[in-house]
């Protein structure tokens, strides 16, 4: 299981700004290791963020998203103290879900 995500969510003027830092290698599948063998691709494919049971963002990624991916987005209608749940799944089927509280 990968390391936990860091999720920051701040509500201002009715808009919640969410910043997520995930911990993932994001291997492209084009790089070679020291012995010249291709390192197999390993990257996050799907990201979903939900707030109070409603999906507020989905993302579909390829291997060109940088290592330890950063994601920032904004949505309307969140209140202080409410939770945001972010889930990702990579191309090997690994999953991770974490939650953050809106400040």
């Amino acid at each position, binding site marked *: 299981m990968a390391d936990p995500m860091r999720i920051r969510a701040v509500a201002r003027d009715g808009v919640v700004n969410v910043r997520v830092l995930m911990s993932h290698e994001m291997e492209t599948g084009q790089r070679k290791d020291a012995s010249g063998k291709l390192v197999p691709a390993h990257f996050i494919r799907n990201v979903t963020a939900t707030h109070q049971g409603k999906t507020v963002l989905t993302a579909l990624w390829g291997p*060109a998203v940088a290592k330890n991916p950063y994601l920032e987005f904004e949505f309307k209608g969140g209140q202080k103290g409410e939770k945001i749940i972010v889930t990702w799944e990579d191309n090997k089927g690994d999953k991770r879900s974490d939650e953050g509280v809106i400040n």
Partner: protein
Amino acid sequence: MNHSRRKAIQSGGGLIAMLLAAGVISPGEALAQSDPFTMKTLAEAMRAVGGPNQTVSDAIIIKAPAIAENGAVVPVGVESKLPGTELIALFVEKNPQPLVGSFGIPSGTVGNVSTRVKMGQTSDVYALVKADGRFYVAKKEIKITLGGCGG
């Protein structure tokens, strides 16, 4: 070109041709199976995500540095001021696979996302936005002084 790579390409193409000839898969199926992330050119990837017609729009703002020192981590944000924005997709023209990723924007979510991408070399970056069922596009060049594919 690297010899083993050429061989792999030949055999890969050969396999598809063989399956087509044997009637195992129809050309339509072969097309449907290819996902936009595997497309090798910008035009193909864009067509796979956003259809053949896209309007250039200045209501899409790509927030990124003009010059990035490290191609492995290039901060790129896309802000769409188009009403009814439902999808934002990001492409780097000169990457081996131009499509970086796409973001689904449900109603209530602002058309404003940021992430960090890898870029192999200086390239135009395109943002494709679907708003109200139509596709719009904007681009910006980002210069890279150090490539991002070496890891």
